[in-house]
């Protein structure tokens, strides 16, 4: 063995740096490259084409065993039966981008007609999704978008702007328009949460919310225990906190559970996005007064129909195209291939018992 292995390693590294110092591929030099991939170029929509029978759809949620995603996907799987297709749900047990990649690759091998994905990272899933599209697999993003050029359409649960702004309005009502608030989000890179938070911050700039101060955005990574601890941490750091907005179903339940069992019960308002079944207890015992959500069943259902319409050639994902989504009626594709589900529903103790999901 060498006498001075470390010195050798250091020298080699130094040489490598030196050798590389001259020129190379930088962000600016490569920004021109065109990676549009398999865009829908050439394909034309035939709005009168019948939905094909026997379509194979696969739902790839952010993670399996997330109660919310399960509801969405199951509704989509049910919806597929209406038009004679089969659908399944597969996915990783952790909400990380890299684990979704292997599933996309597997679904390509299984020659699905369409992959429906709630992207954990809009860019990381892009490469494999482009591969899928180049093999005539239609890609529908739902719940959390992938980069625009990597999917055919995105089913937006509600306009992001509407959700973000209404969250602030709701919280302002709950705390009387004054005090410190915090946001408990999912992962730091979650596309939809970050968009909503962007609109929340924008809404807070309006003069009517001048009494409200957003002190921190915490990340519970859509993990129950971590979200619980983050809530605890928020209240330790800001004992005079008035409210927590958790725009994620895992986060809001964990936050409510912590507040429920702490001395802050009744003093700190919890709101955000949650499911009625998960939040019923906290609404009834007064920990949570109001929260919002769209109907996740309709989201999965609409995604299923969009996938079928794409795979049957009724639509290509271009703005202005229309398709029929079963019991939801006709939908139109908007800008950037987005299809909007509708406005969110506010749940409180008066109406929560009307919902079971």
């Amino acid at each position, binding site marked *: 063995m060498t006498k001075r292995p470390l010195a050798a390693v250091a020298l080699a590294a130094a040489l490598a740096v030196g050798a590389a110092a001259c020129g190379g591929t930088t962000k600016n030099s490569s920004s021109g490259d065109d990676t549009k991939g398999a865009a829908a170029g050439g394909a034309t929509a035939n709005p009168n084409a019948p939905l094909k029978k026997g379509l194979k759809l696969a739902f790839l949620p952010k993670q399996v065993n997330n109660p919310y995603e399960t509801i969405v996907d199951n509704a989509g799987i049910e919806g597929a039966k209406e038009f004679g297709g089969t659908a399944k749900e597969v996915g990783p047990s952790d909400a*990380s981008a890299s684990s979704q990649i292997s599933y996309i*690759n597997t679904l390509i091998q299984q020659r699905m007609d369409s992959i429906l994905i709630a992207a954990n990272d809009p860019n990381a899933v892009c490469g494999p999704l482009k591969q899928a599209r180049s093999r005539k697999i239609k890609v529908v993003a739902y719940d959390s978008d992938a980069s625009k050029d990597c999917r055919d359409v995105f089913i937006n649960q509600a306009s992001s702007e509407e959700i973000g702004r209404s969250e602030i309005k709701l919280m302002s009502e709950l705390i009387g328009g004054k005090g410190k608030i915090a946001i408990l989000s999912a992962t730091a890179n979650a596309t939809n949460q970050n968009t909503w938070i962007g609109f929340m911050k924008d809404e807070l700039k309006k003069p009517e919310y001048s009494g409200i101060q957003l002190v921190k955005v915490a990340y519970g990574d859509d993990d129950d225990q971590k979200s619980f601890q983050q809530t605890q941490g928020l209240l330790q750091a800001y004992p005079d906190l008035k409210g927590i907005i958790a725009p994620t179903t895992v986060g809001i339940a964990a936050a409510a559970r912590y507040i429920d069992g702490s001395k802050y019960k009744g003093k700190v308002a919890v709101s955000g996005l949650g499911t009625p079944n998960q939040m019923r207890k906290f609404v009834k015992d007064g920990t949570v007064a109001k929260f919002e959500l769209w109907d996740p069943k309709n989201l999965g259902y609409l995604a299923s129909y969009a996938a079928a319409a794409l795979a049957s050639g009724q639509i290509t994902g271009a703005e202005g195209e229309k398709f029929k989504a079963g019991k939801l009626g006709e939908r139109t594709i908007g800008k950037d291939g987005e299809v909007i589900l509708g406005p969110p529903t506010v749940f409180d103790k008066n109406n929560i018992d009307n919902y079971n999901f």
Partner: protein
Amino acid sequence: MAPEAPAKVPAVRPRVEGPGPLHRFVRWDVIVTALLIVVFLGGAFGTSDFATSDNLSFALDDLSEIALIALPMTLLVVAAEVDLSVASVLGLCSALFGALWDAGWAIEMIVPFLLVVGVVAGLINGLLVTRLGLPSLAVTIGTMTLYRGLAYVVLGTKAVAEFPQNYADLATKTVPGTPIPYPFALFILLAVVTAIVLHATGLGRALFAIGAQEEAAFFAGIRVKRIKLLLFVVSGIVAAFAGAVYTLRYGSARADNGLGLELAVIASVLLGGVDFDGGKGTLGGVVAGVLLIGLLRNLLMLRDVATEIQSIVTGLLLIVSVLTPRIAALVRQTRRHHRGTTPAASS
């Protein structure tokens, strides 16, 4: 982890771990290789989409980072050490990659810089272990958290994307005419080098000696500390390089990249039959272990087996791999006791 205290060693009851005739009983690496072949053939005949070159290249590409890092990890574990900070070094380097790319650095500059970061990260681990005599398990749990923290300092919670296509291709495309992606081809090359080092050089023999009995190795003139330091540095470099591969492969630089990857690496190494107490193992076993975990996972996914079941299968396999040699050793010992009270080792 720690070498046996010398006080225990004296002639009263010599350990019977030596390469006796019964040693061959426990060739776990052979069993793993056999299992790998069974899984592959089972997949090839039972699942039509499995043995296609497309699918295999996906499956191998998925293993890139785990496979690469498993090589230095094998050397470490053979020498009765471990490096739990590898995934955090990967994450730190991925974050640095993104930040530097955003700042306008050239990729040809960034990658060598990352390797230097890997050297520094490995040096910190190695110096803490060898100079201060701290157990590597504790040290690298600490640096695992530290390096991951630094990754968040570097890139915060944002993600950097849009890397040049030619480099992304290098991380995902296959060597022309084969189903082997470039990173995996590199792994094969490095695996051969590592196998030669471990099984055919003095350094390799020294690693086994250190792992089996550190004190004895030291008194036999092996420069234990220097070798261990080198191992940690190599582990850092490889993890740093894996960070670059990971970033380009997913086209997304993030501070949380590779979270938890160290466990997958160690699982592969243990599954490959390397003894966590050091002194035993083969590189062939580890390569088989890496492939077995990867292909099994791919196969289960193709067959739509639920994620939970996948984890259970991998977990059970791992427990069996750790248990089997122990049970075999136990059986050996009882037999020896039955045979007579001669305490001496055979031969």
